[in-house]
């Protein structure tokens, strides 16, 4: 890992100057230059080279380097939401690729600063991650590597049980996760575990650390389409507007269409986000009208769900082959929204109950939970909670109650519910 040389720094100054001219306001960005092995390692750690040791990251790394070896995918760029913003460049990228990546990173950095979901994320997450890793090493030394690992495994399997809504509340104190002393959001199941489960002190500490990291990452999951769309919208404007030399045009076009194309159709988040921002821009009158104002406003207040809901209209659907009439457009929108709700994760909430009981509800959105995994997850939850844990969900249009106790998980099918199960053909 090295700092960028004079040539790259000059390139960075040029790109950032053009970005500011265009109206972006990225916080300071620091680049590091690495080879792809290191970049894959850092990507496997979620962007944090200092993160705690766990086999899950090793698995992700394995997947990444095999993807790389087989030419399936290649990470060009990696950027993390810290201050200064940290971004990595691949050592053997051509200058035009570095320029493209830097323009793209300007978009991400601006998004991290301006989008409401990132208002409360920890600006010093690199240091925080390093502190978490150091603390977990101490806990491993004190309680045994195996005990710590299996406990972390349990918590990982619950780390999507945080409440997105609670993140946006202003808190005025450090930390990514909502504080425990106020009222807890019903979806903040990990928070409830932390407050009410009879955990050992070291276990409580582990849950708190991992909940903090999960809450740090959640805004990124909620704004993936927008964030990538915004970065792509700006790299393409900046590159084709002023940054490209004549000789670089073909290489750039190749890179750009490589990242936007693919077999994913409109759900490629880069492509969807980019086209939606372009649509917002055009709809509001383009550069000469209020187009720029409109995109800047949209990037500040929306997340993927509200963004698609607000701007995927019939014109957009027609232009991108999503549907030719209102009904088809609405159906395409609904299907996208279903995948974006709660970042594609089921919404699980705690229902009011006795303090030592954990009564959970899967908020029905038309799709069933994968039952074998749900039961396995309940077992983990029961192990932490050390008391009765129940989950209300649905199966085949009927109510289903899963109860986890010392003997395992039991299923109890209830009556047919008025609303049919998953919509046909969904």
């Amino acid at each position: 890992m090295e700092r960028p040389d004079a040539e790259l720094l000059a390139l960075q100054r040029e790109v950032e100057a053009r970005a500011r001219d265009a109206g972006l306001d990225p916080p300071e960005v620091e680049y590091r230059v690495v080879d792809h092995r290191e970049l894959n390692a850092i990507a496997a750690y979620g962007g944090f080279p200092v993160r705690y040791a766990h086999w899950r990251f090793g698995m992700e790394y394995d997947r990444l380097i095999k993807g790389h070896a087989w030419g399936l995918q290649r990470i060009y760029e990696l950027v993390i939401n810290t201050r200064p913003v940290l971004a990595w460049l691949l050592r053997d990228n051509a200058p035009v690729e570095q320029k493209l990546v830097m323009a793209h990173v300007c978009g991400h950095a601006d998004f991290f600063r301006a989008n409401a979901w990132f208002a409360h994320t920890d600006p010093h997450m690199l240091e925080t991650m390093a502190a978490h890793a150091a603390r977990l090493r101490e806990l491993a030394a004190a309680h045994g590597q195996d005990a710590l690992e299996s406990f972390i495994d349990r918590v990982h399997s619950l780390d999507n049980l945080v409440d997105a809504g609670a993140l946006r509340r202003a808190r005025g104190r450090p930390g990514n996760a909502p504080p425990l002393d106020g009222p807890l959001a019903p979806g903040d199941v990990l928070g409830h575990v932390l407050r009410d489960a009879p955990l050992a002190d070291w276990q409580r500490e582990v849950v708190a650390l991992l909940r903090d990291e999960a809450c740090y990452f959640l805004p990124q999951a909620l704004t993936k389409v927008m964030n990538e769309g915004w970065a792509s919208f700006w790299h393409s404007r900046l590159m084709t507007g002023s940054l490209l030399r004549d000789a670089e045009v073909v290489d750039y076009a190749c890179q750009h269409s490589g990242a936007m194309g693919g077999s994913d159709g409109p759900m490629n988040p880069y492509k969807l986000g980019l086209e939606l921002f372009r649509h917002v821009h055009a709809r509001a009158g383009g550069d000469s009208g209020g187009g720029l104002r409109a995109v800047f406003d949209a990037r500040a207040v929306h997340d993927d769900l509200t963004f698609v809901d607000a701007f995927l209209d019939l014109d957009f659907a027609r232009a991108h082959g999503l549907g030719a009439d209102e009904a088809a457009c609405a159906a395409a929108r609904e299907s996208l929204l279903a995948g974006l709700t709660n970042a594609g994760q089921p919404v699980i909430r705690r229902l009011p109950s006795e303090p030592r009981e954990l009564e959970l509800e899967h908020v029905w959105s038309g799709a069933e939970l994968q039952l074998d995994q749900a039961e396995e997850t309940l077992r983990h939850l029961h192990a932490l909670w050390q008391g009765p844990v129940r989950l209300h969900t649905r199966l085949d249009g009927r109510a289903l109650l899963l109860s986890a106790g010392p003997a395992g998980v039991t299923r109890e099918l209830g009556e047919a519910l008025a609303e049919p199960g998953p919509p046909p053909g969904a």
Partner: protein
Amino acid sequence: MDVPDGAAGRIERDRARFAAIVRGHIKQDLRRYVTGSELIGRKGRQMVSIPVPRVELPRFRFGRNGRGQGQGQGERAADEGQPAEGQGAGAAGSQPGQHLLEVELSLEEMARILGEELELPDIQPRGRARVSAPARRFSSLRRSGPRGLRHMRRTFREALRRELAGGSYDPSRPGVVPAPGDLRYRSWKDVPRPEHAALILYMMDVSGSMGREQKEIVRLVSFWIDTWLRSQYRSLEMRYVVHDAVAREVDQDTFYRLRESGGTKISSAYALAAEIVERQFPAAEWNVYLFHFSDGDNWSGRDTERCMSVLRERLLPGANLFCYGQVKSAYGSGQFKKDVDSALSGDERVITAEILDREGILPAIRQFLGRGR
């Protein structure tokens, strides 16, 4: 805070731990790998590449529950960071539903897993060991070397000797400080290591009654036998003999592919095997393993008698093991196994097994290799 280096090194440790977890899964699912054909063809010289289900932590996630309905939400494939995966294909959300993970495992490790699962005893080799490639032993000392190989006891002994000789040693204050010249480092010597050598001779009936599935079973059994014996002997030779009414020696590839249509004279194979062993693999130097697979239909009772006499007089005396695996086919009478059992019962060098279908593979391997011969 500056960004520390070394993520690439740290992640290798996480990956090794992940690999260990995967190995645990392979061990649990050994039966499936043994009875399925997926491993053959994934075998390289040293490694075998194994598809295992993705080791996934359970979560509350949307899923289909096996009825083909519900919403295909896709998985949140990359929910952390903003890795920009270029080149379209393989970007977020495009993974197929079935997560299979390719794991590279050394054949030796595969053999160890097999051995642990089947409780196979290590083989006690016979015969004179042949001296072969030298082995390194850390059994000597040098005055220079890497820090990691410092020999503390010998270093302090040198220091003590120097101080005693120089008169500076004070018994009332027995501290000794090594000088640079006192340092001693472990070093290696090349020691010639005796090794045992083994021959595996496979014989297979390729007459018309042995069908595709029967040959596949033979292929699977011999794959695992190879894997196990390779872990037991450093030098291993293989020979392959096919027979219908006549026998001939072939290479490995032909052995598994060939299909003839003639009748069956098992004695022809045994006679050829005896010739090969006598000519090239003297019993004094070689551990000889003989495996024969057929569907149990021999040409005539007379030929079967001839088989037994070749076995008794020429093959068994120099062999560690003679294993007969009878693969059930639609046409085979299965008589030959009974004949071998009755003619050679009580000979501990002789093992017969009946393999009805793929489920019979693992028990057959256990029978064949369970005696540690």
